[in-house]
């Protein structure tokens, strides 16, 4: 079949709407017969990079209600996994993966993953310092390699309005060692980033660039005056300035997404760590929809979606799932610790609800054709938590994988990821496995992740 090759900017110019918000799912005219992206007439065809979506559900699960007993394709749908029944052959369940955290390399004592587990979820860190884990996290690594030139290569979102200050509760994404990427919580902020607001004309961008240039000079002068200890801090700031510079560069190249609807109103962020005072499910859904938009309009390669803050600050309310109950009694953290029979049922329901949200992303990408496959076929979707059993912060993470990972992943199975000696394996190996499914050229990820879960690969 003969296909046209066309550059996006040329197309935009031709249609006379350059600069205006415009949806840009990959255009068929830009793909060759193998579904590879063709940039310009002269360029070599390039495979569509695998997208990476992470759904983080805090507070674990109740493992007896989650983990299927059977392995392989015959896995049975357990109560907590019920929403997956309709896509049973198109997802993978992985069990026996344990998070590990220690305070000190020489100390074998493990740290409570219920309170600090967020640190390891995407970094593969095992021995974080007081300032955070070694980084960068997998989403950042993937975006750097696969998301070049995108508007927001790595996007991190947290659907929780509580201003928990500790990074070990809320930050999954790390741009460098000990450098947290603050997740976006305001739908309006995310909307503006995707759709664009303010002066995005050439002059506006040039203006912004000249300010950053001025800041860079100031930083250099400070650097020559500062002592050793403070240089670390200045380097951090330097990284942030460069990040903004890079963003400005992409602004010039990567067009914006079309506005999916009205610009969201600002959400009242709480200013303390107590129970929810806003319509939490609405906030979570809005942020999820915008995360989907980021993937669908090719604004982002990696999207990390936190359904809530982890640990004791996990106050997001699930009261809407249990109508008729009292205010404030059904925040996620409380639910995960209530081991009465009713409490377990509630936790299972919360798990189901989180999987339903995860499937929203699955469905949205599944509906978007992309070359010979769909966007889902070119994506890797990862559902996880910071701990296994929510009540005692136990291990064995609840993990679901979906998407074709650009043809690399085999689907429909429940796998136990065990070490050669039969024991549960560290999450660092799971993250290494994900890096391989994404097609990254790494030989190790995180603290010691070097083993692939072979059963996941085609």
């Amino acid at each position: 079949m003969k296909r046209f090759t066309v550059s996006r900017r040329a197309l935009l110019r031709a249609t006379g709407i350059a600069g205006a918000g415009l949806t840009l799912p990959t255009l068929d005219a830009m793909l060759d017969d193998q579904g590879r992206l063709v940039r310009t007439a002269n360029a070599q065809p390039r495979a569509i990079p695998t997208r990476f979506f992470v759904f983080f559900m805090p507070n674990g699960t109740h493992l007896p209600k989650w983990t299927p007993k059977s392995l392989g394709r015959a896995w049975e749908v357990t109560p907590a996994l019920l929403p997956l029944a309709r896509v049973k052959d198109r997802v993978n369940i992985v069990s026996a993966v344990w998070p590990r955290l220690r305070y000190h390399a020489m100390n074998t004592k493990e740290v409570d993953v219920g309170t600090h587990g967020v640190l390891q979820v995407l970094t593969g860190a095992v021995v974080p310092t007081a300032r955070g884990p070694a980084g960068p996290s997998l989403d950042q690594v993937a975006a750097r390699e696969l998301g070049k030139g995108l508007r927001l290569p790595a996007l991190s979102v947290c659907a929780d309005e509580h201003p928990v200050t500790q990074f070990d509760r809320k930050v999954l994404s790390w741009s460098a060692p000990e450098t947290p990427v603050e997740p976006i919580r305001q739908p309006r902020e995310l909307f503006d980033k995707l759709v664009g607001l303010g002066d995005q004309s050439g002059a506006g961008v040039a203006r912004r660039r000249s300010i950053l240039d001025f800041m860079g000079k100031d930083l250099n002068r400070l650097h020559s005056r500062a002592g050793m200890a403070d240089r670390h801090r200045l380097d951090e700031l330097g990284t942030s300035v460069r990040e903004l510079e890079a963003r400005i560069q992409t602004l010039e190249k990567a067009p914006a997404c079309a506005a999916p609807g009205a610009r969201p109103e600002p959400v009242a962020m709480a200013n303390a760590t107590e129970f929810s005072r806003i319509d939490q499910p609405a906030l979570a859904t809005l942020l999820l929809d915008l995360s989907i938009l980021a993937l669908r309009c090719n604004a982002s390669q990696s999207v990390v979606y936190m359904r809530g803050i982890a640990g004791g600050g996990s106050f997001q309310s699930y009261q809407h799932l249990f109508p008729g109950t009292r205010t404030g009694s059904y925040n996620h953290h409380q639910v995960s610790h209530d081991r009465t029979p009713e409490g377990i049922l509630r936790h299972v329901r919360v798990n189901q609800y989180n999987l339903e949200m995860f499937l929203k992303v699955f469905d949205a990408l599944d509906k978007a054709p992309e070359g010979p496959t769909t966007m889902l076929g070119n994506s890797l979707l990862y559902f996880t938590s910071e701990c296994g059993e929510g009540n005692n912060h136990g291990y064995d993470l609840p993990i679901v994988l979906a998407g074709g990972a650009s043809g690399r992943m085999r689907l429909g199975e429940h796998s136990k990821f065990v070490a050669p000696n039969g024991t549960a394996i560290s999450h660092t190996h799971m993250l290494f496995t994900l890096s391989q499914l994404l097609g990254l050229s790494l030989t190790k990820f995180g603290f010691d992740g070097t083993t692939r879960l072979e059963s996941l690969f085609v």
Partner: protein
Amino acid sequence: VGTKLGPRLLVDSLGRGFDNGSDALAVSAAHLEHFADAAALAVAEAFATPTSRMQLVGCDPGTGTCLRDFIIRLGRRAYRRPLVADEIASALTLARTVADAWAGAQLVSEAFLQSPSAILHVETGQARPMDPSRLALTGPELASRLSFLLWRLPPDDTLLDAAAAGALDTAAGVETRTRMMLDDPRGRAGLRDFAEQWLHLRNLEGVIRDANTFPMWNDSLRASMKEETRRVFEEIVWRPNGGDLFELLTAPWSFVNAQLAMLYGVPAPAGAAFARVDFRPQDERAGLLTQAAVLALSADTDLTTPMYRGMFVREALLCQPSPPPPPDIPEPPPAKPGQTPRERLSEHRSSPSCAGCHELIDGIGFGLERYDAIGVRQDRDPQGGLLTGEGTLLGATPPAFTGARELADRLRTMPELRDCLVKQVYRFALGRNEGDGQSCELTRLGDTFAGDKHDLRKLVLALVRSDVFRFVAPFRVGGQP
């Protein structure tokens, strides 16, 4: 311009404590974007009309040395020190990247407000000829420290001028200036903010109470609680001849409005205003630990949580924060019907891995059980059990106490209370936690504080005179001085 930032800046901390704790602050790209937005907004407003922009710049930037003069003036305000030649040059270059002189002045204003030198506290210090072995903060650096401590604002031109003229070069000079700044209309902001953060009052905003259990709970009650504690604190601290901060713990009086009067069961003042009330013994109110704000802050949605009240006392008043729970927490036993929180917690403490911390915190909270989750006095727990107010404060002599009043008296006798207050003020003033290098100086300040009958303003004066405030801490690794 600098004081007129529209949207609330994203202030983020990675740890506990005061919001200026340097070990916990990082400037991410997201922060920079917030600064950029805030700067753009504030500057756009200042340049919105010919009148307003003339007011800011003071002359036509297209003529003579106007632009240069403006840069020197604005730069000093933004960086809180005089600019060096190189900085003036790069600001002029930036301003001239646009053709219109007013637009250039606007661009450069925006850039100054978000530049690293503006958003970081830069304290390099310099050695003095007579004292070459250590680095003294420069005049402008000290002006910044004082201004952010006392006013929570960047220094104004008057203060920077005084610093440039050497007014802050001696301990006596710093003290004189501090007194002037405390007497200034802006002078109460610093200590007010200190109290809010020290006593966790900001967290009240997020406190939620079950509407069925507490029908009187609403936003205005929440605000009243905070106002009460603030008023009592300021009443004591700003007495003309100095007040004893320890009185905050024991004061059998307070300021209440009609809502709080109902909560405390005392006669209501007329109208909506706050008025002083002297409590009768049967009111069982005395000081901070019986104030609704503190009692509500340390409770759950529908029940008291003795553990939280104990943690508050340990953390805020004794500087003994509880370590995080151990990794091997056993499953809490399911609540038995009719079991009180006290009984459940006692069971919890029978586990050796939990006992260590819970012994320290639970006993304090038990002594405050005669106040419910919004601070109303109660004689019985929800299961009908009699609440006696008996508690234990490990570390005090004797540890056993009955009721909030005795608890406050015990606390006053503990040397840890005095030391903790000094530490809290130090952390707030310096924006970082104390290290081993400061222990002598802090002990000395503690003695002064005791000698001054726990006068907080005198403590601030002693602190700003001290070497820890006026000299750069020795080179530090890992963030600890």
